[in-house]
């Protein structure tokens, strides 16, 4: 009599502890995955910010270098691709293309001293460099969060909870190497 009451009590306590552990683990994973989403939307914000800068920049450059139509077309194309990107991977790819088209535009601007001295252009260049830098930061922050989250869902014993509730791996924000021709916008400020 006494013995089986004890057993039931022990089992009950163990069960309750188990449930608490599952709830804790689950909530922890939800919080981590939310952080990943927040970091991703931060990238999105900055990409959008750059997108808004591009028309102004293109207009300014066009005033001095209207015949460089090829690079304008490249930028427009890359922009459209970025707007249509749905997965993290295609976003990263399109981001890299926009960045490299923009760096080509800025390289062209080097040939037009009047453009280079234009206050408006200098301002836009600063905004663009700042935005590229923000994108880089947001990308780093996102990948860091994604790494933490991915580690958590693979680590024992949390991985049991992750597989029960179907937590999926977060994709890293990385473009394939050939697309990422690092646009060193800062270089253009040098003397």
């Amino acid at each position, binding site marked *: 009599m006494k013995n089986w009451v004890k057993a039931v009590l022990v089992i009950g306590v163990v069960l309750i502890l188990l449930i608490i552990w599952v709830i804790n683990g689950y909530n922890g994973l939800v919080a981590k995955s939310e952080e990943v989403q927040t970091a991703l939307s*931060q990238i999105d914000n900055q990409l959008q910010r750059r997108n808004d800068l591009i028309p102004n920049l293109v207009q300014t450059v066009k005033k001095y270098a209207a015949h460089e139509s090829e690079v304008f077309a490249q930028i427009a194309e890359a922009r459209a691709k970025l707007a249509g990107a749905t997965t993290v991977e295609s976003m990263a790819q399109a981001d890299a293309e926009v960045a490299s088209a923009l760096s080509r535009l800025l390289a062209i601007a080097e040939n037009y001293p009047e453009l280079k001295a234009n206050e408006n252009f200098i301002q836009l*260049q600063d905004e663009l*460099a*700042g935005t590229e*830098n923000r994108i880089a930061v947001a990308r780093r922050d996102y990948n860091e969060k994604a790494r933490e989250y991915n580690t958590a869902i693979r680590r024992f014993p949390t991985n049991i909870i992750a597989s029960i509730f179907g937590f999926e791996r977060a994709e890293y924000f990385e473009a394939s190497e050939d697309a990422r021709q690092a646009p060193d916008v800062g270089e253009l400020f040098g003397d």
Partner: protein
Amino acid sequence: MKCMKDLRIVIFIFAIALLFAACSAVQDSYPAHTEAFYVNDYADVLDADAEEHILRVARELEDITTAQVVVVTMAGIGDVPLEEYTLGLFRDWGIGQKGEDNGVLIFVDVKGRQSRIEVGYGLEGVLTDGKTGRIQDKYMIPHFRQGRYSQGIVAGFDAIVNEIYLEYGYPDKLVGDGKPLEEPTWPYEQPEEDDSSLARFIVWLVLAIVFISFDLAVFRGAIISTLLRSRGRGGYGGWFGSGPKSGSFGGGSFGSGRFGGGGSAGGGGSSRRW
């Protein structure tokens, strides 16, 4: 028994207080900021007047607006890209208030001939990248080219402080006569002892006491000892041994020690080379 408890409380309070003073020294990759916080002249290019001016103005700015403007000079940062380094430093020190992110870092790498104004999230609206670039072009770089670092940094610093005052609605507080490029002649006031950081310290102290007594009463100190142990430094000894000798606790210079408010940045600002 009662006496033991009291002693433990005192020890914990000191551990917590030291933790707040020392939190920037835990990281090894960035230098710890000076006790004055606002001026960190590691390249040793600022003259005494410039340092005093920056300290006084930055302290008043924080007291009025809570925004923090921090000046750092260094002689070389190795192979790290400038933007990465300044952002890391900014976040490590936590420049600006937590939640407001209203900090600015003016960073000058004398050896690498490069400078950057790093802007916290909260001030990106007023200090746009374009504006920080213009401030450097107009006030800083021309001086830097001639090796006049004190003048350049003070002029750029004043311009930024003025932008922040205008943003927070204190047009009567502007510094540098609005003509920072002129020969700078500042009033040489002694920095006043300010009591707001003392007040902040007392608030922390009270909070710490409440927290610790609660922990001791309900959990028999379990939370504290877990916290201390989780730092992996072998208990209290590590705290006392490794923290910077902050001076705030030893000498009489109680009100002058300052530190970051936990602000963050996302890469806003602009860079220049000369």
